[in-house]
């Protein structure tokens, strides 16, 4: 039982980080019909901004983190929108999807060539010590990751539901034309979605990289898991992405411990096909009557 608790809690902790990535993905999808296949790389890159800050510019950790956050928002938010999404969106969804795939390769190869191909150690933001909780030994890092990412999700939800700007963003996502008529600055709201996505990706990067080490190829699995989390939870809302992320984190850990460690990476495929066959709108999604 204590082993189960342990596996479950650390699954929740990783899952909450997946949720951050999935939420960002959902926001951008809703705001600009952009399926970002470089989302995994968006989580990989900020960790390397931090490493550059630490080892090249010799900044203290907190300054390196702050710099990485600002850089991520600028590069992965603003520049991504201005240089990739805006010129290509008029060409259609498939073009944009392929462009984001090319962007993923670009980011991955750049990190590999300009920083290094080996996995780099990454400083932990929160202490590592194991603590005892209901008879299970849980690492402090896991607990802090869980609390921090859930805290971020709560803040984001409050922002989207309780502030004027947040509601304008929701209106834009639901119906841009009507939102525009009602006086919402639609363009600005879409830009916010991109900036928030970049910030969420950077936060997820800071939290998850100490667990996995920083490596240029980290994005491949992370991206896939984030897509699946968004789809499993239901594409049209934040709650869905949160639930999907947590579910995948827990299931992944349980599979690795109790079923098969060799095939744990096949879990996303199984989940994806199950959800399409059983509940295509996602666990928490509302049906839109989708068929081809």
């Amino acid at each position: 039982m204590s082993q189960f608790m342990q596996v479950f809690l650390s699954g929740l902790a990783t899952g909450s980080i997946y949720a951050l990535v999935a939420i960002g993905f959902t926001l951008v999808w809703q705001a600009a019909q952009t399926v970002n296949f470089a989302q995994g790389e968006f989580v990989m890159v900020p960790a390397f901004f931090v490493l550059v800050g630490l080892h090249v510019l010799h900044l203290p950790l907190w300054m390196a983190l702050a710099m990485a956050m600002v850089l991520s928002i600028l590069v992965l938010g603003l520049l991504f929108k201005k240089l990739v999404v805006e010129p290509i969106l008029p060409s259609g969804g498939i073009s944009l999807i392929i462009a984001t795939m090319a962007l993923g390769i670009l980011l991955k190869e750049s990190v590999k060539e300009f920083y290094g191909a080996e996995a780099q150690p990454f400083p932990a933001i929160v202490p590592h010590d194991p603590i005892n909780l209901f008879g299970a030994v849980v690492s402090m890092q896991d607990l802090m990751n869980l609390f921090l990412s859930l805290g971020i999700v709560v803040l984001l939800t409050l922002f989207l539901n309780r502030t004027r700007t947040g509601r304008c963003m929701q209106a834009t996502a639901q119906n841009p034309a009507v939102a525009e008529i009602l006086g919402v600055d639609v363009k600005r709201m879409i830009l916010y979605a991109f900036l928030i996505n970049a910030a969420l990706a950077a936060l997820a990067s800071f939290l998850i990289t100490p667990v996995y080490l920083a490596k240029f190829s980290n994005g491949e699995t992370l991206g896939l898991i984030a897509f699946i989390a968004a789809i499993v939870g239901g594409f049209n809302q934040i709650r869905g992405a949160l639930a999907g992320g947590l579910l995948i984190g827990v299931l992944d850990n349980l599979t690795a411990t109790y079923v098969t460690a060799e095939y744990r990476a096949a879990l996303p495929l199984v989940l994806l096909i199950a959800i399409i066959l059983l509940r295509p709108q996602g666990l928490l999604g509302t049906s839109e009557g989708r068929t081809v």
Partner: protein
Amino acid sequence: MGGSWLRYSLIGLLVVAAILAPVGQGNYFTYVLTSWLIFSIAAMGLNLTLGYAGQISLAQASFMAIGAYTTALLTLAGWHWMLAMPVGLFLCFVVGLALGYPALRVKGHFLAFVTLAFNTLVFLVLRNEGWLTGGNYGLIGMPRPDFGLFSTMRQINFYYFTLAVTAVAALVMWGIVRSPWGRAFKALRENPIRAESLGVDTRRITLLAFAIGSAYGGLAGALVTPLVQFIEPGSFGLVHSLRILLMVVVGGAGFFFGPFVGAAVVILLPEFLRFTEGYYLIIYSALVIVMLAFVPNGLLGVGALLRDRLRPARQRADMVEGARLK
């Protein structure tokens, strides 16, 4: 019609060029040419899925893996390549149907996600099931097909063998896109609602396009096995699926000859750009993004654009929407 005469003589010229290309060249150049043909076949299949049916598949390299491993295992067991290859093709077709059936039930780019995840599964199976696939070490020593008087052990003979297979594959594809089926693919791409109202079963047609496209991936894989005579899981990863997808896009999705041009760019260009070393992929992916912004129809799209400038009267009614890449 003058246009089609020009086209046929152009195709004839290309075939002659393909026959003469390796004459007097070294083994390495012939090897590169052969892999260009093989990747053209894989890209041709994906072009049917992407360019004609408008669905993204990210698993073309996985289908190549299925074709390659099936052929390898059977030829190692003593089968002739001509018998082993169809088994691989059939397997890819069936897996394509099984994978596409759930993914195409729902609207959106679900096939992209399903095939993305499928890549991981194929890689895991190839790596973990060592008793069958040789695990990380892969399989080695597969024989090349022997046709009595014509042995393909010599590199140049294997090139001609691949060229013949490519020609047959291209003719079959030509037949598919000009058949009622192929016209249904195009109808679907140009105006799905109207196609559906005219009785085109959208789902079945898209599913078939994907399964046939996957079988072409299998054929390419079946040719990789005797060419390299060594296969391992790493040669069929996600990166390679993306590479094939970019071939289709760069060449021009929805154009019949797009895959050949795209594969040439992706396979031959690195040979000429050796001096860029590791930066090659960075430059290439950046160029793809720029291309998608300015000429989303690919290199052949540029050609069509120029032709329309010179002779603006000709508007192909079946290319108005294109592959929705513009």
